[in-house]
């Protein structure tokens, strides 16, 4: 088995289960995240990776199981609540608002307002947005246009910038490279590497490309059939091993279905 949980875990997830009607998304998930670590979360489509992310970030509630944040019991009431406790997320669907400008999207739920009348401090938010985007090195020419006008990669960069720019110490990235070109993808991976170097944040990242996983992550956890089927430091695994696990699982499942069909006949 892989490494067991240690006292310096910033996040621990114990026996998490979640059903959606007849569908069991997560059966019994145990996961831990060390301080400053980049954890790659793998699994086939529909394995429950996004569900797990959404439970950790407070968007959904688990049916059973517990979570611990810095050793303390952690049961987020909402996204805002989890965020206040230092967990921020880049969702698979990016959670961007098409009708709003780039800088409003970047500031959403962290808006700066004037005093005493709480009007939006747009100029300040624009400056902040410009700085945040420059920091992650992605070029968005105009930040006052609506995000609907941007390319998929640019939108993704904005979502990543929003999260990285928060005060979070745990960052969840749900397929941060999905819509990106090779160059933009490399920029995001560089950014992750830089965050890791700084050592302030711990990251859980869902990725599909195993090469990226081995390049960017310290450790991998693979969800299969609602449980963590593999948990290893990336140094001890390979693209071949990860691929084999998925393919074997696919063959096993197909055989099972086949046998069930034969039995039914």
């Amino acid at each position, binding site marked *: 088995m892989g490494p067991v949980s240690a006292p310096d875990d910033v996040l621990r997830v114990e026996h998490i289960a979640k059903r959606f009607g007849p569908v069991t998304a997560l059966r019994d998930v145990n996961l831990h995240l060390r301080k400053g670590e980049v954890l790659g979360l793998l699994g086939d489509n529909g394995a429950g990776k996004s569900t797990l992310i959404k439970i950790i970030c407070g968007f959904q509630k688990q049916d059973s199981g517990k979570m611990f944040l810095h050793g303390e019991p952690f049961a987020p009431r909402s996204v*805002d609540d989890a965020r206040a406790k230092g967990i921020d997320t880049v969702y698979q669907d990016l959670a961007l608002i098409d009708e709003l400008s780039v800088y409003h999207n970047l500031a959403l739920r962290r808006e700066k307002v004037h005093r005493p009348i709480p009007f939006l401090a747009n100029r300040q938010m624009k400056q902040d947005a410009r700085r945040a985007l420059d920091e992650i090195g992605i070029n968005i020419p105009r930040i006052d246009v609506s995000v609907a006008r941007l390319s998929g990669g640019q939108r993704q960069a904005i979502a990543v910038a929003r999260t990285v720019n928060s005060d979070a110490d745990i960052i969840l990235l749900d397929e941060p490279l999905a819509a990106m070109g090779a160059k933009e993808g490399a920029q995001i991976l560089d950014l992750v590497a830089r965050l890791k170097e700084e050592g302030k944040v711990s990251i859980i990242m869902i990725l599909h490309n195993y090469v990226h996983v081995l390049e960017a992550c310290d450790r991998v956890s693979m969800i299969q059939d609602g449980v963590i089927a593999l948990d290893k430091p990336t140094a001890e695994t390979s693209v071949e091993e990860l691929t084999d696990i998925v393919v074997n699982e696919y063959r096993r499942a197909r055989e099972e279905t086949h046998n069930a069909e034969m039995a039914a006949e």
Partner: protein
Amino acid sequence: MAQAAENPASPGSSTPPAGGPASTRRASLPSRKVLLERVLSLREGSIIIVTLLVAIYFSLDTSTFLTVSSFKTLLPFFAPFAILAAGEVFVMILGEIDLSIGATYLLAPLIYYKLAVAGLPPVLSVVLALVCCMVVGLFNGFLTAIVGISSFVTTLGMLFTLEGLVLIISHGQPVSLPDAAVSTSTVQVPHFINGAHITLTETVTHVSTFAKVLGEGTYSELVWALVIVAVGQLVLTFSRWGLYTVAVGSNKLAAAEAGVRVRLVMIRNFILCATAGGFVGILEAVRASQLEPDVAGANELLLKGIAAAVIGGTLLAGGSGTVVGALVGALFLGILNDGLILKGVNADYQLFYLGLAIIVALAINVYVQRVRRGSHIG
């Protein structure tokens, strides 16, 4: 070599903004065209132009349109709709609709009347009547945002229920409002005529300040409409409330994921809209000095309020809208109404023309917006 080393350090700032060349080209255009372009680039730009055209048409076609008295008769056909539409915009941006304003329009003055007759001070009665409207809005919001019934159904049910309630309570009979009524009194006025003091009895009419402020003053409704629209637009464009309203209307899931409290945003906009309906009801009742439980009239008013919002550029599908646009939409309806009357159009034809004009105005609106979008993409 030094340049090459410098370049990767600032990848974000090294490229000039793409808008650069385009904006310099625009600046060199003649200023009149720039102004037109700027008006058209506003969401409410197209309806402003359409409204101006209609106003110019009536000014040229009738000799009486551009007069103060005509403006005064125009006001009741305009100001109430502007306030109704302002509230409706907040709900329509969410992609929802509120039909119950037709009911709060009747209910609020009735509650106000009952409380005032029971001896409460008029201002307190008005406040309590508006609180009742807020409860109606809370209920609409609860059923839509939390129970998950479509707002069309929720508020239609609420409309019929409350209109029925108004008929039950009022027995369908109009009553005159106590504080709004014009009271008369006789006073002895001393005169000094041809060296002799004489005293004559004269009748003086009184309109209370309360009534003057709440609808009876000639420009009262106009002032309310302008203030409400101004505040509404400020809230929509420059506050978190407005930002979240657009966020929820544009993409509920994304807004929720970003941490916006979607249900709260929806509920408070329904409260706002229902209260605007009630407030217009009170203004109109005080203006007429009487309370008329006219369900058909309320329904027509409700639909025209929604029409004003839609004409003003607010999308029924949600995500986008302006309060100032709603005001212009209401002005368009008012001018059309007033103009048709001044032109001496047969009363039977008025609704017919009004309906056609709404369709034409919206068609122009959509066309201009499409041209605008196209120019922006290119």
